[in-house]
């Protein structure tokens, strides 16, 4: 019978996770303003232009605003988030990876 060994676990200690809540969802998108947020990664704005066109063709009552992040996707952008909070009802972010 091979000997049993005791060894140490090599993994670090995980962070404490704070659970967050979703924002309340909208009853409907009719008449609402949706911000399309370009994350400035790998031509994401080009995809969002097509999302914008889709809303124009299929849900014309929805107003879309296409904006680009002020900096790289990895950096927080409170200016853009505040703009959306003040003037928009919802947001679509793209393209994440």
């Amino acid at each position, binding site marked *: 019978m091979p000997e049993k060994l005791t060894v140490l676990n090599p993994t670090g200690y*995980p962070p404490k996770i704070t659970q967050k809540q979703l924002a309340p969802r909208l009853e409907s998108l009719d008449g609402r303003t949706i911000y399309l947020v370009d994350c400035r990664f790998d031509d994401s704005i080009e995809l969002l232009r097509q999302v914008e066109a889709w809303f124009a063709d299929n849900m014309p009552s929805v107003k879309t605003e296409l904006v680009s992040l002020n900096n790289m996707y990895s950096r927080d952008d409170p200016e853009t988030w505040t703009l959306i909070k003040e003037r928009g009802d919802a947001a679509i972010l793209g393209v994440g990876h």
Partner: protein
Amino acid sequence: MTLESKYNVPTVALHTEKFDRIVRSTTRVGGLPQAAFCFVPMPVMGKSAAELRAYVEGADPLSGRPLMQEVVEGLTTAYSPEPDAGGFNPRFVPAPTPRLVEPATEDELRQLFEDNNWTDFLPIVLPTEERVAAMLAATSHKPEEVVGRMQPTHNRGYWEYTVEKVAVNAVMAGARPEYFPVILALAASEITARSSTSSSAAPMVVVNGPIRHEIGMNSGTGAMGPFNRANATIGRAYGLLSMNGQGGSVPGETFAGSLGNAYTYSNLTFAENEERSPWEPLHVTKGFKPEDSTVSIFWGGRSTTFNLGLREQHWREHVHDMLMGTDQLTAPCLVLDPITARQFIDRGGFDTKDKLFDWIHETAKMPAGEYWDLQLVQNYLYPRATFGEEPFATKLKAAADELIHTFRREEINVVVVGGETNGYWQIMGTNYRKTVCVEDWR
């Protein structure tokens, strides 16, 4: 997640399909596993308007449902988050880490370490209590002391590791106890050697000072290859510590490097050949004393150009061409055999590093239009330019045909290594990050 939870704005995130598991594990770690997201095919980059319209009008490739239906539902009360039980690795619901692994036979433990992705899939030394204790005896620091924290990329959550955790990984790598202060110094840098970047980056570790000789590191012939236990196992320990200390480096979950990078087996760990260099050692350039023992960490390692010597007639043009082959996202670090280091002085009169760096900076230029059209520059530097960050903002004002500096002067580096079997040399695209004093970890 910030827009959703901090600003209270209903949000749907569009991702490319390859990042399914990464998105799910990131939202869990971020405390918002119920976040609304959907997927489009990969890639988006370079696709025509018609192709992207087809993405939008088509189905989410993972769920099979119409993409825009998912988007609209995700923003409205029709949204029903997926049950919080994905079919992926439960390690991303972080649990307290036990100190010991359940006792088992050697074969069973080897299998367990592989199954848990705790290795680099080369054989390891099992970290028994006796071996770890021997490693710990090589430092004055207590086993429970926190050395640092790492994460694979932004927003993944920092994991902490102690002196004992570093020792466990050092044993696994096959390191001798006398190498341990160097490994602890690397751990203290808090720079992960297992970044999740899709670009597959690798560190480069340069050891300077008396410690090189104390532990028998190689700075001469074959220094960057697998010919010396200290060079090999210090770099490997750094990699294992990074992947395990940060809570994983698993393709598709905590690692997204498309190609991967073989440099990460050793993390390009070597000692500088200070004795044969015509210039001051790297650590002195970075503000340390010659008698200090240090580790310096670079980060990049995706582009490497190489050459032999410097020819009298066209050496300037040849170096220019190499610099144009260096990725613009990082910066050139010249890795020179001592023969070539002296040739740079003979050909260009660069008897100080400053003179060399000035010349490299002025030589590495390209038309602004060409520079800004690079996808790397578009992704990572153009946004910073439009935000007003210098020197990128000024570069952005240049006419398309105006030659602009490709790299920042202060980011250019040089390291001398090798055994003078010939004047071969490389330009590594890699950014200097940090130098840590080994003395602090003895």
